[in-house]
């Protein structure tokens, strides 16, 4: 009998949803951190799309509707708007989605250009808006968002550009129809030369550098993306979304045209079959680790934000929170694990930045979509109380399993018990369809747990590791020496490579 299954809308198994109640409770489950919304002055609609810390400690906030605000004392009590001090610095920008302070100026990416903004006469208001670079296609399609910039270690700006959606928009007075470099990451040299770098992006709405100056972006589940990825941007990489490929044939393209793309195979298989295909450094399993990752930032506070130095914190739009990513290099490429970190924010997280005092700011706007946090926009501050949270600090791949390190000393009995751990692995399909389920799920047997000296880490010996697959670890049984449960008992490691293999 032939039964045709339809096109398969993004399906979430009901079992997945069993995880969801934690969304509502997690806000109180992480007592080592406090979350405080900034109370904004009347009429200030801070749809915070980008945050940039100035060298003197002030904070610049780009606003989606085209403004930049300066917060004079962002470390003051967020509930006291006067003490914080809000001042309009720039206006008239076209949907700036990102902000950077560099060399005495603010840089933002508008729809159609990378713009350098300065106050040349010292009156506190910007008076110079210079185009550092432009040249990517803007056809008028709403989906053509542009994000950034960030600076790599050579001093080049990086920008991510959404894929377009739908046909060109007809408009009197508009004669440019080509839409080059949509769905690409591009870099701009200090003298303004635009170079396409990586292709295959869909809606890469967060971009950041890590401690080593490598550039990363998040992307959005949808066509070609079964779930959300964290991508390590580099020259010549193709990440999978097909709309960017016609431009791979242009002479400037560093990405080789992979030709006809396969479909319906796993992403792991696609990475073997498709020329230049680069796997994400981390997959964010859908709903389990967010539904829409946005802005991200690397914790370079030197420990002021708790025991997660050099890790990446990633904004989450729909579920209104922040997730955490640990990265390591295996075989020369980044891979790592994602953990949930903070839920229950007031609105959709869009942009992240650290203040000098080590508190994490979350810029928010749920414009155009919806979020679990019901406020339309805002700014929140997450502060570490100094108390040690009990969390999985990191998860590192080993030739025969994983080393799992906890943030605090553990209870040897529960932590050494094999039964305290469960692991399974799965991957995703590579296809044009919108989203996709976890596929090829298999249990991973943990055959031995070895508690390491110092009682803060264990070695998990695992049978049946699969390269390329997400390895989902759940550790409900582990307790700290003080008897605490883990604030988040799940970690999702993307095992692109097994070390030593």
């Amino acid at each position, binding site marked *: 009998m032939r039964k045709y299954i339809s096109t398969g809308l993004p399906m979430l198994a009901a079992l997945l949803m069993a995880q969801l109640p934690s969304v509502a409770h997690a806000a109180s489950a992480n007592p080592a951190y406090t979350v405080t919304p900034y109370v904004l002055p009347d009429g200030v609609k801070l749809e915070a799309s980008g945050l940039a810390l100035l060298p003197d400690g002030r904070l610049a906030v780009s606003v989606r509707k085209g403004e930049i605000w300066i917060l004079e004392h962002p470390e003051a009590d967020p509930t006291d708007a006067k003490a914080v001090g809000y001042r309009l610095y720039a206006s008239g920008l076209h949907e700036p989605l990102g902000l950077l302070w560099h060399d005495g100026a603010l840089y933002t990416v508008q729809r159609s250009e990378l713009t350098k903004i300065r106050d040349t006469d010292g009156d506190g208001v910007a008076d110079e808006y210079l185009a550092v670079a432009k040249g990517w296609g803007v056809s008028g399609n709403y989906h053509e968002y542009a994000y950034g910039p960030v600076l790599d270690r050579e001093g080049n700006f990086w920008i991510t550009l959404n894929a377009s959606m739908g046909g060109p928009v007809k*408009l009197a*007075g508009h004669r440019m129809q080509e839409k080059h470099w949509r769905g690409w990451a591009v870099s701009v040299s200090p003298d303004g030369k635009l170079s396409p770098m990586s292709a295959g992006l869909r809606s890469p709405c967060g971009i950041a550098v890590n401690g080593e100056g490598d550039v990363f972006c998040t992307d959005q589940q949808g066509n070609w993306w079964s779930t959300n990825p964290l991508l390590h941007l580099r020259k010549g990489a193709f990440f999978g979304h097909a709309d960017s490929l016609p431009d791979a044939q242009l002479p400037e393209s560093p990405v080789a045209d992979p030709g006809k793309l396969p479909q319906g195979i796993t992403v792991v298989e696609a990475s073997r079959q498709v020329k230049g295909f680069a796997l994400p450094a981390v997959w964010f399993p859908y709903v389990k680790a967010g539904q829409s990752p946005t802005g991200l930032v690397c914790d370079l506070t030197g420990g002021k934000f708790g025991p997660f130095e050099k890790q990446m914190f990633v904004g989450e739009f729909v579920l209104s929170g922040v997730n955490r990513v640990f990265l390591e290099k295996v075989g020369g490429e980044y891979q790592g694990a994602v953990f949930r970190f903070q839920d229950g924010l007031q609105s959709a997280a869009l942009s992240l930045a650290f203040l000098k005092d080590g508190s994490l700011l979350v810029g928010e706007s749920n414009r155009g979509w919806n979020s679990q946090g019901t406020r339309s926009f805002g700014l929140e501050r997450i502060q570490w109380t100094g108390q040690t949270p009990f969390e999985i600090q990191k998860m590192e791949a080993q030739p025969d399993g994983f080393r799992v390190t906890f943030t605090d000393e553990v209870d040897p009995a529960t932590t050494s018990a094999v039964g305290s751990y469960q692991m399974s692995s799965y991957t995703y399909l590579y296809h044009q369809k919108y989203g996709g389920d976890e596929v090829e799920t298999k249990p991973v047997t943990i055959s031995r747990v070895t508690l390491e000296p110092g009682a803060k880490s264990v070695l998990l010996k695992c049978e049946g590791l699969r390269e390329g697959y997400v390895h989902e670890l759940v550790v409900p049984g582990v307790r700290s020496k003080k008897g605490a449960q883990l604030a988040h008992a799940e970690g999702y490691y993307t095992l692109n490579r097994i070390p030593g293999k």
Partner: protein
Amino acid sequence: MLLLRYLTPLAFCLALASKSAAHPGQADPVEYPFVAGFDRFYSAEDDEDHLAQGGMLLLQEFNCTGCHAAPKSWEDRLETRPKVALDGVGSRLSADELWLFIRSPQHRKKGTLMPGLFAGEDRDPKVVEALTVYLSSLKKEPKKFPQGDVERGRQLYHTIGCVACHEPAALTDYKPVEAPPGLDVEKPGLPSVPLLLADKYDFHALAAFLQDPLSIRHAGRMPATELSDQESADVAAYLQLNREPSNTMERTLLALPPQTPEEGRKQFVAQGCTACHDAGKVEPLPRVKPLKDLRVTEGCLSIAKKAGIPDYGMSDLQRRAMLLALKDVQGTTPQPRSTLQTVDAFLMKMNCYACHEWRGTGGLEEPRAQYLTVYEAAAHSLGELGRLPPKLDVAGRKLTDEWFARLLWGTGGGVRSYMTTRMPRFGQDNCVGFLPALKESAKPEKPIAIDTSGLLKHHRSELGRGLMGVGTGGLGCVSCHGLKDRKSLGVPVINLTHTVHRLTPEYFKELLLNPQVTQPGTLMPPLFMGRKKADQEIEQLWTYLKELDQSRLPEGLLQTGDYEIKPEKSDRPVVFRTFLEGAGMQAVTVGSPKGVHAAFDALEMHWAVVWKGRFIDAMTTWEERAMTPAKPLGTLGPALPPRMPLTRLKSASDSWPEACGEAAGYHYVGYRMSKDGTPIFLYEVGGLKVEDTMSPAPKGDGLLRKIKITGASDAVAEGWYFLGVDKTAQPKPVSLTKGTVEFEEYIKF
């Protein structure tokens, strides 16, 4: 003459082959009577029990019980199929076409369910002729339709859902909008319902049929798609593209003695046509054996063809399936059907599965799905949910009786205006009996209680309105859902105006409490997860929607005019970047408190629009996901020519180049604010740096433009000319003095 008879079909075949590359009417048809559900869900590899079910479907779709009475116990499984009306058929098709079709339906329209009655060498020419004359006499002037537009028809045919059942055009003729770019476009794997006679219909008759197919084919297998007069005409025009004259040769050559309609009518009754066709007064059917006495070696199922025995031209597999089914009917009493089987049988029979998935079965095959798209680009964000028909798993507990009636046999009822495809109508008689089973099949495991009285607490409606909106206390429903005539602030999902008429309150609550469990894959966020007062709040929302007519719209949908930018309320010019009509996608608009405005096209690097009065409404730029370009609100000034201000010419009388922007060698630098806040646009060309400013003229009757040009040396500007925007402007040489020169223009309006 003999030669002609052989040549004609050959020539026809050639024409068919060469054109099968374009029009859906000429796609390769199947070679047997086509029943979509059978083709899709049954195959030669099936076990006999399963194939017998396929045979039951065929017994029904071939209308076997129209002639052969079913045993009592099987009657409700083998209902006769509603008939095809023939009144007016003589106005729909020419006598020659009727003749060709009656003579050998499977030859003229491959895939048809109409059996041939005229086997044998001579094909009973007199009978065929008599029937032709009779049917030709059944005239009824079809309703008149406007002239159709082929291009619109092509669009409609491919996007509203026709291609779920019928063949899409070849890719050279129409490319599916949602096909993945850069990949080969897949062709449908399942066969299509043929439309081989469409181009032979009278144009108005075809349009009338497309608009109201159920008035002719009562069975509803071809549903009505709520086409307007114009749309019906457009699709008809498309289907009749490249129509060719009928092949009348054979009938003429037979040169039969004239037959009368009366003789034809007698034959009509004698041949048993009334088993499947309406023809006014009901005639008694010729006596044939009931199903239980049929012998498979005789009659319709025998392999040898005999004159007078209907020949369906069925495939071996169809025949095998029917024999198995017949064995069941003859030898057993029917097994009771479960609710799920009843629903499945209906969805298969009516081919609902062509579009909808139900419990893992059916749904559009991908190569057909790629034709269905959206009217609003922003709906692309919804993925397939935004453009493909929904799954039916929980439809039975989701929709109210009122809404089922609207959707299945009434009018309206669509709530997804962004979707190009339409839910078609299948007729009340065909559908009403199926609804109880559909409802039973979707019964919730745990009943859900919701109080919809609205009486328990005062202000419930207003509280619901608060929840619906954005801002303090709001859940932001209007971020995605529109209400009444207002679009949502963000993605365009289902408009909620008709919620209380459309949805059962229990389903409404179930969905809100746990969207993903109720509708896996929905984009609805779990807004009520962990909310302590979820029960009351959901009831408040319901109450608000119930009282929507008397209530204000929620926050967020109100007061769109608030986004108008009013420079007159400021003491400095306002700069606003947007997509702007007349200035393109990189417009920088400058609004002056004095009410004279200008827009600079930063892509082409010249002034593009000037206007007076009201400035701009930023609503679409700021608040609308689709980001419709803004318009200058006031009165437009003179049209500015799209050309660059400076170029190098051999002489002032040379023609001014048409190239703009970077193509003209220009480089955009940005803008700097003057002391009063007016932006000074900066760009460079050929070693010259330009500062270009528009400010209101002192009297407010237009704009004053100032252009300052500087060069590293006076020689840099040699051969360069400046040309203003005014219609009468003439090129002026750029002569630098101490490296600089200034021009002024007064644009009066």
